């Protein structure tokens, strides 16, 4: 089970990284959809799956990390900050133009994925609601703005590409919200106090 998870994580990592290197780099240079809705989610997923595959193997390291992440708060904060940062049009442009910024994007989004996985594992529903309740509306708002404005927000992308990415971002937020709701349901929650520590 863990091994197959590891294989999926490796495949996700490989495809996310390939998008930053030629020849596939042309995709994220030309299309905001490929950059924001394919590569960035792939990077977060890589972190998530990687963390899932390694959980239980890390020994005391994870245990210490948990003391810094009670209720999943720190991890959520980290993920929220990272996502917000890479949703600023100017930083998206920079990741397209500057290799160093692109590297920072890759590293930080993978870490955000790890943080998310760790936090969702320990966070009570109320804390999850706090996170999902800030992250998802942020995505919906930005997506709706990107799709609705006639102003080009990124110098690196055409308006057409921006509108498509904006719509996609709204859909992605809705999809993630749905997944989160289902996961919560499956956990047999519904009661806020049903937290795992």
């Amino acid at each position, binding site marked *: 089970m863990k091994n197959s998870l590891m294989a999926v994580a490796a495949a996700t990592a490989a495809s996310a990284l390939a998008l930053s290197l030629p020849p596939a780099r042309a995709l994220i240079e030309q299309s905001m959809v490929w950059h924001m809705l394919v590569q960035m989610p792939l990077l977060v997923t890589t972190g998530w799956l990687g963390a899932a595959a390694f959980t239980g193997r890390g020994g005391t390291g994870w245990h210490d990390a948990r003391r810094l992440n009670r209720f999943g708060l720190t991890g959520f904060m980290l993920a929220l*900050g990272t996502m*917000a940062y890479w949703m600023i049009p100017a930083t998206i442009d920079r990741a397209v133009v500057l290799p160093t910024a692109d590297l920072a994007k890759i590293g930080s989004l993978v870490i955000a994925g790890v943080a998310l996985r760790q936090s969702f594992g320990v966070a009570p529903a109320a804390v999850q609601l706090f996170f999902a309740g800030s992250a998802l509306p942020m995505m919906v708002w930005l997506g709706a703005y990107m799709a609705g404005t006639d102003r080009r927000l990124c110098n690196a992308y055409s308006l057409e590409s921006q509108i498509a990415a904006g719509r996609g971002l709204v859909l992605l937020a809705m999809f993630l919200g749905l997944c989160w709701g289902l996961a919560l349901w499956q956990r047999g929650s519904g009661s806020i106090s049903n937290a795992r520590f």
Partner: protein
Amino acid sequence: MLTFGACLAVLLAALVLMYRATDGGSAFTTETLRRSEVARAPIAVPDFSVIDAGGNAQSLRTLLAQSGDRAWIVDFVYTRCQTVCLALGTTFQRLQATIVEQGLQDRVGLLSISFDPLQDGPPALTDYAKRMGMQPGVWRLVSLAHEADRRRLLERFGIMVVPAPLGEFEHNAALHLIDPATRLVHIFDLGEPGAALQAALVVRDAHVALSDR
């Protein structure tokens, strides 16, 4: 307690990084960042060899400096453009009309620079100048003499050109104000030609007043 500290540290780091990335929360797009950077610290216009519709080559700085103490409003175009440069063209036509009407041509000049040297040779430039009704004493049109300079020019001015469908380009279109000392001093939105013209006059008159003293 540990978690509380870690949260605060993360929050603080995120805020600092975002503060730095957005110029203190004031600029969320590269375009606004570019404009505020220029407004804070003018950029010397780089020198390039440019050609006009007659096929004459000269240096860009010479062109800007030769007609006396003039400020310039500069835009970047490619002549096949059907979209944003059309809007730029209309804006420049109106500016030209105002300049002629008020007799400002000794103080302010208009310059369109094509960033598509492969397509925009002298014939294309001639055609575009005619279509736009350019008056040579007011509005100049040039293209790069060497294709190799294209990247340097666009980088210096902070213009990003993106290929768009139907062989078009999309680019951040704006009005660039260049003072008589050939420095890029301010960038205006397409929709503010009036403000650009006012500023051009102020910059030009200030330059003349200072050099008189």
